[in-house]
């Protein structure tokens, strides 16, 4: 069928043609092929902040002050200006219009961190339904912290990590949640996952998954802590029943369970060498045990199988640490377990790791995989969207390309798969991205693989800093006529002056408007160069 790429022709076509059922959204999104951020204002005069991201509904631009003490929130607005003369389109933008303030209105600037705290600039989660943001501040990290009070050896400690729940509309702090002498991996939202109104926060130091709920009134409420215990009232139950346990040895300290719920002091517990398995470990070990026990029917073979597959590794299983967690739905968590050595290392690939699916309601594991399990990979390949667990409220987040919703992304994956020399290595690498960090991908239509093609080494929907290149990044139409539609050039128009120095770029795309910010930084001391890309 004849399809014109001319926008007027397209609008006519939209009038006379009804798209196939359930495709009207995709049809409408094709207009983004005509509306692209092809015009760039280089080196915009703007406040020296570090720009974090646009919220997924496009209502706010989040930024932090350079000293990591203040939060500054902007409202993105569309550029409007007037010009004298007749052929306005051919005029250059006036100097007045080229300012940062023409695109963004400052809503407020507020101090978030106290004197010895800093805002974690890599951490921000947004709850679209209530328009509330979750921010984190923390004190400095202590690397050689003693492992007291049930803490895991080898994990650094942070004296105070505070989560701030802020209403973005007016900057009111709704609630705060403090973790003391704990360690939560805040970089790229790794240690915290938001699903609808539920938050999962992984305390690496105390090996506890804290489940919190963001109530409509803006309170952060503890729902349960999974770690030492599984159900929310296990600890209460144990304490209320210990009256029957009038122990023969009163000096036995380790019976008194630690109170993880109110993250106050964790150091009232001394875990001796020979202590009970924690709640989550008991469930995990018993799940692994039962898997092997039920697999083999013959009694004698069963015992031998257990010896070889289970008992020999028992201590390794018992020593496994919770690395990362994500929600799969409101009741199921995907948990990555690994050794203590790999928990904070960048090359976690070398370390043995496992994936487990835990049902919070039943307080039991439902699946356990090694990190090169082909079964899990095939699930991942076909149902990637289920691992992304989009929240119900946001619509445009559903259009983020994945290899289960986009044929081009799937084709790319197939291509890598066929090229890889070892399938198990490929599976390991592919599964290495699980569990997914929360809200790490931009829903911008310019990253929609069914609309545009671009070099993923230079730019992608995943929010990361990249080493910048001098070459412009090309966005090519995915459909016929496959032409270059627009370029994003992060560097200044004419040479940066500092030759050879490594430059780091980051890109913030507005989720709806043809508007993007690119930030280029040479070193941390220097002021960064900010460019605004938009449709003129």
């Amino acid at each position, binding site marked *: 069928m004849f399809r014109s790429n001319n926008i007027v022709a397209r609008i006519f076509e939209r009038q006379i043609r009804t798209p196939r059922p359930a495709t009207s959204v995709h049809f409408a999104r094709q207009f983004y092929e005509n509306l692209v951020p092809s015009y760039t204002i280089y080196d915009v005069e703007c406040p020296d902040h570090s720009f974090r991201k646009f919220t997924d509904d496009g209502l706010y631009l989040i930024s932090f002050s350079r000293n990591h003490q203040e939060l500054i929130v902007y409202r993105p607005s569309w550029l409007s200006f007037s010009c004298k003369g007749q052929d306005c389109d051919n005029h250059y933008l006036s100097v007045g219009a080229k300012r940062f303030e023409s695109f963004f209105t400052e809503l407020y600037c507020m101090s978030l961190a106290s004197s010895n705290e800093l805002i974690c600039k890599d951490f921000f989660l947004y709850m679209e339904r209530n328009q509330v943001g979750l921010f984190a501040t923390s004190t400095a990290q202590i690397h050689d912290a003693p492992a007291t009070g049930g803490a895991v050896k080898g994990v650094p400690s942070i004296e105070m990590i505070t989560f701030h729940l802020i209403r973005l509309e007016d900057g009111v702090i709704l609630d705060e949640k403090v973790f003391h002498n704990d360690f939560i991996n805040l970089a790229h939202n790794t240690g915290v996952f938001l699903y609808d109104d539920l938050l999962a926060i992984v305390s690496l130091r105390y090996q506890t998954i804290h489940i919190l709920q963001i109530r409509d009134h803006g309170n952060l409420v503890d729902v349960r802590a999974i770690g030492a215990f599984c159900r929310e009232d296990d600890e209460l139950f144990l304490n209320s029943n*210990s009256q*029957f346990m009038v*122990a023969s040895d009163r000096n*036995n300290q380790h019976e008194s369970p630690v109170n993880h719920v109110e993250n106050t002091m964790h150091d009232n517990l001394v875990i001796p060498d020979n202590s*009970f398995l924690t709640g989550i470990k*008991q469930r995990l*070990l018993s799940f692994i045990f039962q898997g092997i026990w039920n697999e083999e029917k013959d009694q004698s073979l069963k015992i031998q199988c257990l010896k070889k597959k*289970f008992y020999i590794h028992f201590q390794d299983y018992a020593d496994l640490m919770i690395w990362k967690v994500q929600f799969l739905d409101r009741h199921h968590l995907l948990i990555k377990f690994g050794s203590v050595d790999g928990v904070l290392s960048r090359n976690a690939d070398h370390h043995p790791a496992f994936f487990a699916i835990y049902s919070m309601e039943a307080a039991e594991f439902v699946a356990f995989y090694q990190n090169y399990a082909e079964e899990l990979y095939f699930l991942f390949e076909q149902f990637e969207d289920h691992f992304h667990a989009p929240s119900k409220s946001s619509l445009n987040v559903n259009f983020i390309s994945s290899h289960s919703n986009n044929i081009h992304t799937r084709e790319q994956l197939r291509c890598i798969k066929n090229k890889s020399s070892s399938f198990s290595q490929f599976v390991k690498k592919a599964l290495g991205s699980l569990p997914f960090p929360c809200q790490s991908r931009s829903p911008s239509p310019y990253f929609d693989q069914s609309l545009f093609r671009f070099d993923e080494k230079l730019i992608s929907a995943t929010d990361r800093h990249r080493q910048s290149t001098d070459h412009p990044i090309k966005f090519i139409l995915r459909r016929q006529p496959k032409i270059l539609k627009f370029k994003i050039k992060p560097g200044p128009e004419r040479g940066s002056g500092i030759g050879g120095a490594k430059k780091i770029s980051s890109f913030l795309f507005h989720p709806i408007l043809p508007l993007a910010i690119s930030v280029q930084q040479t070193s941390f001391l220097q002021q960064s160069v900010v460019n605004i890309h938009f449709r003129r």
Partner: protein
Amino acid sequence: MNNASSSGRGGRSWPSTTSVSGSGKRIQKEMGELHLFPPADCSAGPIGDNLHHWIATIIGPPGTPYEGGIFFLDIRFPGDYPFKPPKVVFKTRIYHCNVDSSGTVNLDVLKDGWSPALTISKVLLAIRSIFLSPDPYNPQAPGIAHLYLVDKTKHDEIAAEWTLRFAR
């Protein structure tokens, strides 16, 4: 995980080469026997390559309040095994009058009643038997023993709840 010895427990608990030939051989022999004739609902095996440190699993016997539970036990064989009894400690919380609050099992067989003629299979059977019939007259947790004698229904209720919460 493929190489359990990498975790460093390797030969640490091997006291001397002579004890390997003594207690080690005996433990190996018992392992063979256990694999040929495993007691019902029980299994056990050494952790890593340390013959003197085992883990055993007892599945809560049906018809008891421990039904459905998977109970892990830590078993350490002394260097002069079988002349001294192994030390058995529950790794799983259990509500039982013969197990103290730190998980240590109070069994005559593991104390004065120990005989070098006993084997790990017999020890496992003995522990399994206290699941079926606790011994409240020789308690490690007097409170539980008292409740067991006074109100067995309540005792069983609590024990079943413990199994559900801590031993699944």
